[in-house]
């Protein structure tokens, strides 16, 4: 509390009292409204001169406020809000800076010169809302096709294809689409030739065996050396954030499963933590432990996919088969518990869908006993292989400072020596009760990122073992009217409960107005859901902060000067999935 008040005092003393207005939110994150004119000044103060400083631009998003049912916060009617989430590692605190904007297509200063990772975030806001950032070096669409009409996250933009009228592709439109697909290096800020060489442009993807999905990378090559590599994303964009505005709070859960599609229920957790903050639900201990256990299973499953495909990218064909076999064993357990496998959609508001089945403990115990020796074998097979080392050591290096500048979280950050793990630093869902280590490495190259992930699997197993031994008794859902589906036990006794139950089942729960952000340590880095509710049956705005987005943005920075073969090491070491980038 001291640090918090000292921040506002500090801002008071530097900029004067009128520069910001404070807002109180249910997630107890310090939230300040500032005006666009002061934006650059205040943010650069927070990043550079404030002590301790807010070094990480965690997220940047916008909200279309024009159809808001109830005004929240202390700034009255305005059309758009830009929200900056900053993180200070020293304070271990987030800070939310909000800027209110007026007008149909407003603009504000760009902060891309302040934080390197603001570049893509601002492009995304421009793409989704049509808000312009002046001073931005390359403000063009990032997720939507270049020929798209309208800006999808604006409230007037339809959310369903059926609202848009039938699709027609007449000749001129086809020509226009084809024209937009023509590759012109200048559009990407690439020169065709240097003083002594003509560059070769290699279009890697969106269909390419090494990109793990529909990712396109435009390579500017001098021989096999990469002069520049520009990722072109958006091929996997499914409008997950827009869907959040039309689905009810409850029926949105399955969509979250598919954001980081290797993370399974871990996505549910990130979403539900934010919903539960808004609804004020405290979940029972048993729910917390069940959730943690399944999340850690999915962390192992996700890391196994990464491990195998990474080795395969480097030409080692066999490990991926062994690792997928082990992943199947995890999925067998997940299936026994949840019924589903990759996308179990099993967590619910205020709990989980069902209690653990009979015999779950033997399944888990078998796996805990079985898996460590597999990890040792994989370690000998992959990590100790000298060719593997030759391909990964010293490749794609970045330092802690660079990582923070680009918004890197998760194993990528820990591989350069920073032991930052949200499970330890800002424990959620009861992680504070578990005994585990945060693996780190020092060099920040592809090999170290692998070392961190491999060790993380052992730590996850340790957590699962503790879940197994200390599973608390109790209910699998909290006794709160907003849980989904609500508990039915008292509905036949009194009419009030029956009515609430009926409404919550038919409409879905009505979550009180407010805003909240969750932050979890997902498989690939920090994953957050920033939810705004205007007291309705669905969210007013769902913002999904995914780790892969900033990681992919860093690709040009860390791959320049390496070769095409190294690019595959860098991509493999990064561990991204396209749905996690594009949402």
């Amino acid at each position: 509390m001291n640090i918090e008040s000292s921040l506002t005092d500090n801002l008071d003393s530097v900029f004067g009292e009128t520069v910001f207005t404070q807002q109180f939110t249910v997630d107890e994150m310090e939230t300040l409204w500032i005006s666009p004119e002061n934006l650059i000044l205040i943010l650069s103060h927070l990043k550079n001169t404030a002590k301790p400083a807010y070094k990480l631009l965690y997220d940047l998003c916008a909200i279309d406020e024009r159809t808001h049912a109830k005004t929240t916060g202390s700034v009255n009617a305005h059309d758009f809000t830009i929200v900056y989430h900053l993180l200070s590692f020293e304070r271990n605190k987030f800070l939310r800076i909000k800027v209110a904007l007026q007008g149909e297509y407003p603009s504000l200063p760009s902060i891309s010169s302040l934080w390197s990772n603001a570049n893509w975030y601002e492009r995304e806001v421009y793409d989704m809302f049509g808000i312009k950032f002046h001073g931005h070096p390359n403000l063009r669409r990032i997720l939507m096709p270049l020929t798209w009409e309208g800006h999808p996250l604006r409230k007037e933009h339809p959310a369903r294809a059926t609202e848009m009228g039938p699709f027609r592709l007449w000749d001129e439109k086809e020509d226009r689409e084809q024209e937009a697909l023509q590759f012109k290096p200048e559009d990407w800020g690439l020169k065709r030739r240097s003083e002594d060489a003509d560059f070769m442009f290699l279009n890697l993807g969106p269909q390419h065996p090494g990109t793990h999905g529909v990712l396109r990378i435009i390579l500017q090559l001098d021989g096999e050396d990469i002069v520049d590599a520009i990722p072109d994303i958006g091929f996997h964009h499914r409008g997950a954030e827009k869907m959040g505005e039309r689905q009810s709070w409850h029926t949105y859960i399955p969509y979250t499963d598919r954001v980081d599609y290797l993370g399974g229920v871990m996505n549910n957790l990130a979403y539900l933590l934010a919903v539960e903050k808004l609804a004020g639900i405290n979940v029972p201990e048993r729910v917390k432990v069940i959730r943690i256990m399944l999340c850690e299973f999915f962390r192992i499953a996700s890391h196994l996919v990464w491990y195998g495909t990474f080795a395969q990218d480097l030409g080692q064909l066999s490990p991926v088969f062994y690792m997928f076999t082990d992943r199947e064993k995890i999925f067998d357990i997940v299936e026994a518990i949840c019924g589903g496998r990759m996308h179990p959609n099993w967590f619910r508001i205020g709990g989980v869908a069902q209690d653990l089945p009979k015999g779950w403990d033997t399944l888990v115990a078998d796996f805990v006993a079985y898996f460590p020796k597999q990890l040792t074998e994989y370690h000998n097979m992959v990590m100790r292989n000298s060719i593997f080392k030759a391909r990964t050591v010293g490749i794609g290096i970045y330092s802690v400072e660079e990582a923070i500048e680009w918004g890197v979280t998760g194993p990528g950050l820990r591989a350069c020596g920073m032991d930052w793990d949200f499970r330890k630093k800002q424990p959620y869902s009861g992680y504070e009760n578990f005994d585990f280590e945060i693996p780190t490495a020092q060099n920040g190259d592809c090999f170290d990122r692998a070392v961190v992930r491999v060790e993380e699997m052992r730590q996850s197993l340790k957590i699962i073992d503790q879940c197994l031994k200390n599973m608390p008794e109790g209910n699998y859902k909290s006794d709160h009217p907003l849980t989904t589906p609500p508990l039915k036990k008292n509905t036949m006794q009194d009419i009030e409960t029956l009515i609430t139950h009926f409404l919550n089942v038919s409409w879905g729960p009505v979550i009180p107005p407010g805003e909240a952000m969750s932050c979890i340590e997902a498989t690939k880095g920090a994953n957050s859901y920033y939810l705004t509710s205007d007291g309705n049956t669905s969210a007013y705005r769902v913002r999904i902060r995914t780790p892969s987005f900033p990681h992919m943005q860093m690709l040009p920075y860390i791959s320049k000067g390496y070769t095409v073969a190294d690019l595959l090491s860098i991509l493999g070491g990064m561990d991204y999935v396209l749905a996690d980038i594009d949402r």
Partner: protein
Amino acid sequence: MNETLGYVLLIAIMLFTLTTIAAWLIWLERRMLALWQDRYGPNRAGPFGLLIVAADTIKLFFKEDWIPPFADKKIFVVAPTIIAATVLMSFVIVPFAPGILVSDMNVGLLFFLAMSSLGVYSIVLGGWASNNKYSLLGALRGASQMISYEVFMGLSLMGVVMLSGSFRLTDIVMAQENYWFIVTQPVAFVIFLIAGIAETHRLPFDIPEAESELVAGFHSEYSGMKFGMFFIGEYLGIMLVSSMVVTLFFGGWLGPDFLPPIVWFILKTFVFILLFILLRASLPRPRYDQLMEYGWKILLPLALLNLLITGAVALWIK
């Protein structure tokens, strides 16, 4: 007249046998990989899936014969035949058993080296004619890899030539009657094996096609039987290198009398073919420049050193 007819018959039988075995190797490789990778592999067509080869061949033959419109058509068509042709030509000098060989040339070893050098044209021309950037990168990688590994492939064999005093392969085999050359030339064996893997561009030396980087490298644009030629050329190459290893270092057809010489030869060759497959199952792929560095900075000096010592010892014994 009869002699000529005999040779023609022998060549016809060899061509048939070699291509059949090469095609069947595809089945063997897939089954062995599957075995080592905890899967089943092709097991549907015929007993143990053996007919998968026939099915694959039929499929390849009946695929649309497609030449990309942007390709250089003549070279595009010729390129795949070169690899299959040069490898098959090399088999001319391989002594399978006493009497079972097409030509007992007195420069047999040089003929083998010459033919394997020609094979690189297939990759370079194929990659060039495809007019595709991935193919071009693959072709460039292939050219530099094969040219550099050729150098010490030749050098590593000179020790064997010194010991046997001949380039004729039957002489080399007969010179191993007391002991196999692997005993005195282990370094040369290792270098030749590595260079041989590089010649056939198999993992870990498959950088010309490196599927996770270059899609399919130099043969990205090929389909149907033209792709089939590259494919069969690769497996013929495996057989060739394995049989050369056996001939040069493991006494060729020589072996105890209870089995006929040809059986010994085939058995030994299959051991090395399996080694090739095992390598593919287990090793990752080094980077292109690492491969070059490894070749020029380690293997070349080693080959020269081996040559020097072998020469010195040979002179001293004399």
